[in-house]
């Protein structure tokens, strides 16, 4: 009963809020960027990082790209697909944006996919990771600045099987498309490298207590691979420690589980967790040192994947806008420029796009440690030039079904 009431109320609130929003459209000479982010609800923390990441980029460029002023218009999707659709329509039709950045959640992105195709508005997805958007269901107006869900888990699996020599791993993850894709990528490479996934549990997104899941893990595991968002990760790790498993079974995690956006709200239960990501705030390179220092000064927090994804979207934009001499109104040329972006140096290293508009990037294997009084993802190993297809041939990879709960099939369950 509560859910419909909640949705209705959210809808009403969003309608009211948009009614009050300024109708002003800036003078025609500025480039208008629409940012689809989240200000309310459980995803408010990562949503804020998106906005902070992009505004940091624009501040650095003094809100000017290729000599044209840039105007940023933000919209709160509340991580609700219906709201995302309305807001996107508004940004396109009322604010007449030239390009969109965001949204946060894959479900939002899938909801606005048709809208983007119809309106032919370039969009740079700075975090939405749904695999098929850059695989089997390509949208000509879509470029990703982050990475696909399974892309980075491949590296984690390789590291677990080859460097750590793990053989038996259990998987526990949110029962959400995103996490299903993350763990499928892990399982795919881990089992092809000789490991066995002996248990797979998908827990409901609102699981108040993980005791049941933690206590039914199989014996003699080398590790458990987890993929959670928001508060579920810390809750799982808490129960994991409470039942005496911490230190006995290693914990490997998907990127969002220990993202910097939430890492420092966690307790020391999280220390020692290994994860793979396409970014770590602790990455040692000059661009990142400056990026993190500025971000910390402005926001009193470490940047995580959402912040750096949005910042990367800014870098993409800059290069493409310069390539078309600021003429973003020439959509075809602008889109072509976006797709051929190549960033030589960024906080996360070199970024270039594959033929499917998904970045080929560094994958970092990270370990949570406490340094200078805060929790950090310390980089243990860097895999350079990781594509969404890992070491597989793209054609063969795409001939398989998309990563999901069922694919690749788990053949070693006990």
């Amino acid at each position, binding site marked *: 009963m509560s859910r419909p009431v909640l949705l209705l109320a959210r809808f009403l609130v969003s309608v009211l809020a948009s009614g009050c929003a300024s109708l002003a459209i800036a003078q025609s000479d500025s480039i208008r960027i629409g940012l689809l982010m989240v200000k309310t609800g*459980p995803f*408010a923390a990562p949503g804020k990082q998106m906005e902070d990441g992009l505004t940091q980029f624009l501040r650095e460029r003094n809100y000017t790209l290729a000599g044209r002023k840039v105007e940023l218009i933000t919209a709160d999707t509340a991580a609700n697909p219906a709201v995302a659709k309305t807001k996107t329509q508004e940004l396109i039709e009322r604010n007449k944006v030239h390009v969109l950045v965001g949204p946060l959640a894959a479900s939002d992105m899938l909801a606005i996919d048709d809208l983007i195709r119809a309106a032919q508005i370039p969009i740079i997805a700075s975090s939405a990771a749904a695999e098929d958007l850059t695989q089997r269901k390509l949208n000509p107006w879509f470029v990703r600045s982050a990475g696909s869900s399974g892309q980075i888990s491949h590296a984690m699996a390789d590291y677990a099987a080859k460097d750590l020599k793990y053989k038996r791993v259990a998987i526990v993850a949110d029962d959400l498309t995103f996490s299903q894709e993350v763990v499928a990528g892990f399982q795919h490479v881990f089992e092809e490298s000789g490991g066995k996934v002996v248990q797979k549990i998908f827990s409901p997104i609102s699981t108040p*207590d993980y005791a*049941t899941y933690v206590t039914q893990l199989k014996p003699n595991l080398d590790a458990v691979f987890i993929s959670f968002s928001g508060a579920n990760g810390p809750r799982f790790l808490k129960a994991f420690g409470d039942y005496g498993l911490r230190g006995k079974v290693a914990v490997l995690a998907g990127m969002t589980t220990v993202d910097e956006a939430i890492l420092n709200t966690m307790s020391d239960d999280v220390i020692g967790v290994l994860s793979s990501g396409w970014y770590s705030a602790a990455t040692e390179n000059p661009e990142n040192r400056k990026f993190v220092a500025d971000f910390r000064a402005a926001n009193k927090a470490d940047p995580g994947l959402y912040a750096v994804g949005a910042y990367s979207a800014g870098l993409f934009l800059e290069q493409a806008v310069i390539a078309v001499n600021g003429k973003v109104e020439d959509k075809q040329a602008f889109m072509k420029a976006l797709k051929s972006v190549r960033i030589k140096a960024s906080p996360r290293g070199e970024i270039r796009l594959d033929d499917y508009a998904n970045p080929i990037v560094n994958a970092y294997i990270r370990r949570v440690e406490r340094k200078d009084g805060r929790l950090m993802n310390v980089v243990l190993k860097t895999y350079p030039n990781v594509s969404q297809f890992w070491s597989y041939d793209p054609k063969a990879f795409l001939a398989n079904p998309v990563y999901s709960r069922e694919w690749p099939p788990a053949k070693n369950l006990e």
Partner: protein
Amino acid sequence: MHAWAVQTFNSVAFAGLLFLLASGFTLIFGLMKIPNMAHGACFMLGAYVGYSVIQAGLPFFVAVAAAGVALALLGAIVERVVLRRMEANEFAQVLATVGIGFIIADASLWIWGGDALQIPEPAWLRGPVRMGDLVVPKYRIALIVCAAVAALALWLLVDKTRLGAMIRAGVDNPNIARAMGIRVSTLSTFVFCLGSALVGMGGVLGAPIISIYPGLDFDMLPLAFIVVILGGIGSLAGAFVGSIVIGFIYTFGQAWVADLAYVILFLPMALVLIVRPQGLFGRPAA
């Protein structure tokens, strides 16, 4: 055998949490017929208040008490200022309490931010304890004890004291109770405060396990509903038995068929509603 023992323990611990969550709801509904839709928000607010008290350097159980007092005060204000005006109008009450729930949730987001927050349990309750070949967390044992104490105290209050007799009289027939000189109106405020205080304390006690985050309110509300509807709305014994039944069903459901955890959770409620609409311990509607 071992797996059974562990999951049985988990079930009882979860049942303890459920009872702390649901008893306040059923108490309020029993006397005042108000389905308090803000109940989940009160649980969350209690946890947030507890968090701030602990951040201020005070011990865990002081934080529990502080959350109880804070929520009792809030309950008094809500009952006197808002709900009093819409007595016996259930639709208005539902809408008003939904609204209050939203206000609490948004105010919490404003004050405590969108990040998930952790409340650490007291140091002496941290970590696991070994019982034979069973490894169980100390804190969950403490949680079971707290819930048992709360259940016992409520039972004594309602069944053995003069105040309890007055509350029961008010539930049975408010008009006659009034005629007998019982101040049902003051009693209502008291019960609303007590229910709110209980759920506020439950929020702090549950936080070391479930943590605190925006959205916690609407994650907990359905659980309170299920327990209360299964047990019989307004019945404390019902909430007690309902908590245990749901605690077991939920835990063993997750252990056996993780994919259907939610189906298994709601199925018994649906069945009970079909066979016995008033719940296990409820009385048929007049």
